[in-house]
C-alpha cells in the first residue's frame, strides 16, 4: 500500500524519466507537460476533497474488474447500472516504479447504462492508484480523472477508510 502524499525525491525523478522517455506507447504521461509530482499532488487533492482515499477507488475498480472477469471477454451487466467487459492478453508487465511484482495485461471497459459515460482501465491502473496515487497524465489513454471516476462510479465519502500514516 502506498504512502501519501508523495514527495519529490531522486527515486521519483527516475520514475518520471521512465514514464516519459521509456515505453511511450503506453502513454502514461501522454500530452501532459505537468511534472509528475504536480499530477500526483493535484489528483491527491481531488480525492481528498471528495472525502475518499486512493484505496477506496482502487477497491471499487477491482470489484468491477472481478465482475467483468465472469464474462470471460463478453460484456456483463453489474448492479443494473454498468456494462463492463474485460480483455485479458497473456503475459504480465512490471510497474514503471521499478519494484518487484508483475501485473496482468488486461483492458477493462465500463459504460454507465443511464448516462452512456465510459471509463477504461487495466490491472496496472488499479495498482497505480492503490500504491502510487497515480491516475496518469491528462491525455493518457488510461487517464482516470479522479473527479470523473468518483462521479461515474457514484463513490460516496468513506470515513471508514483507515488513515494512512505520514511518511
Amino acid at each position, binding site marked *: 500500500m502506498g504512502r501519501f502524499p508523495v514527495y519529490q525525491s*531522486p527515486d521519483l525523478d527516475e520514475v518520471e524519466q521512465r514514464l516519459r522517455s521509456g515505453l*511511450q*506507447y503506453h502513454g502514461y504521461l501522454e500530452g501532459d507537460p505537468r511534472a509528475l509530482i504536480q499530477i500526483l499532488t493535484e489528483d491527491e487533492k481531488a480525492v481528498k476533497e471528495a472525502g475518499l482515499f486512493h484505496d477506496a477507488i482502487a477497491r471499487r475498480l477491482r470489484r468491477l474488474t472481478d465482475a467483468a*472477469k465472469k464474462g470471460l471477454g*463478453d460484456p456483463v451487466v453489474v448492479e443494473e447500472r454498468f456494462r463492463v467487459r474485460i480483455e485479458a492478453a*497473456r503475459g504480465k508487465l512490471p510497474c514503471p516504479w521499478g519494484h518487484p511484482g508483475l501485473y496482468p*495485461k488486461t*483492458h477493462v471497459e465500463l459504460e454507465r447504462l443511464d448516462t452512456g459515460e465510459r471509463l477504461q482501465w487495466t490491472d496496472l491502473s488499479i495498482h497505480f492508484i492503490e500504491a502510487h496515487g497515480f491516475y496518469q497524465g491528462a491525455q493518457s489513454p488510461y487517464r482516470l480523472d479522479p473527479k470523473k471516476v468518483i462521479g461515474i462510479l457514484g463513490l460516496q465519502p468513506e470515513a471508514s477508510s483507515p488513515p494512512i500514516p505520514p511518511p
Partner: protein
Amino acid sequence: MVQLALGLLAISTLAALLALLLEAAHAVLADYGECRISINEGQKELTVQGGGKLLGTLMDQGIFIPSACGGRGSCGLCKVKVLEGGGPILPTETPYMDEKEIAEQVRLSCQVRVRNDLAIHIPEEFFLIKEYAAVVVGLRPLTPNIKEVHLKLVDPPEITFKPGQFIQFQVPAYPGCPEPIYRAYSIASPAGLKNEIKLVITRVERGLATTYIHTMLKEGDPVRVNGPYGDFYLRHSEREMVLIATGSGLAPLMSILHQMADEKINRRATLYFGVRCKADLFYQEEIQALAERIPGLSYIPVLSAPAPEDAWEGETGYVTDAVARQIEDASNMEAYLCGNPLMINAAVEILVSKGLPEDRIFYDKFA
C-alpha cells in the same frame, strides 16, 4: 513547515549525490578483470569480463536464461543456482524465493553481479536455448485481430523444440519504444520444419510489441528470436486428451496436433476452440486436414457471440460451457490449455470438478 520542506530537500539532494557517487565509483573503480564461470560442475567453462550482471554476461556467451522483465528483478524467472562466489542473497531477490530455494543457493541471475569466479548450475535444457537471426517471409491476417508471422531462420538455420514451447521475439527500438523488448510467442508450426517457425499474434490494446508487429513489421524484415522455452508439451501416455484454446492460444496446440499426425500418435483427443464469432475462427482447413491424419481427433468450435449472418448451428456460449456440457467424467483424461488467462482459470475449475487431477492439466503457468 518551511523547515520541514528544507529538510526534505536536503535529504533528497544528499541521496541523489550519494547515488551519483556510487555510480561514478562503480564506473571508475569497478574493474573486476577476467572472471571464470564454471557451469554444471565444469560441463562448460567460461572466461568473461567481470562487472556485469550474471544474466547479461551469460547471454553475451550464448547462454539464455528465461526472463520476462528484461533483467529488472520483477519477474522472478531468471533463477539459477550460484554455488560459489555469488555473495549473500539480496533483498531484491528474497521476495521470489522460498526457503528451499534459498537453502539450495538459488539466485536471480539478473541481480547477481559477476565480481569474481563463480560456480553455477543451470537446467540442462537451457543449453538448447539459442538466439536466432531470422527473416520475415510471410505476414498473413488470420482474423481482424490476429496475424500469422512466418519466419525463416538464418543463423543458426535450424531450431529444435518440443511442440507447445515458445520463443522470445525481439522487437527493435522504434519511436515510442526506445529500447529493444522481448515478448513470448508460442510456435504454431510443426517441429519437423526445422528452418522456419510460424507465430500467431493477437493485437493487444496499447501493446508495445503487438502494435509494432501488426502495424510496422514487413515481409523481408530481419528479426531476432531466442528459445525454445517452456514446459508446455505433449506428455507420453495413452490417456484421452482434451485440448482447449481461445484466440491465438490455438498456436501451440496446432504444433502439438502436427506432432500427433507426424508421429502417428492416435490418442483420442477433442479440440475445443472458443472465439466470439465466425470471423474470429482461423486455421479451419488446417484443423480439418489434421483431423484426417489423426483418426482419434474430434473438433468442436464454440462461438460465444455469433453474428446473425454467421447462421451458426454449432456449439455456442463460453468454450468452458461447452466443455462442461460435453465431458461427464474427466478423471482419466489429460488436458492441454492455452489462451485467455480467464478461460484457463475457468477451465481448470471445471476439469477439476469433473474429476481431473490438477497435475494432469497442462498450461503455461507464467502466461
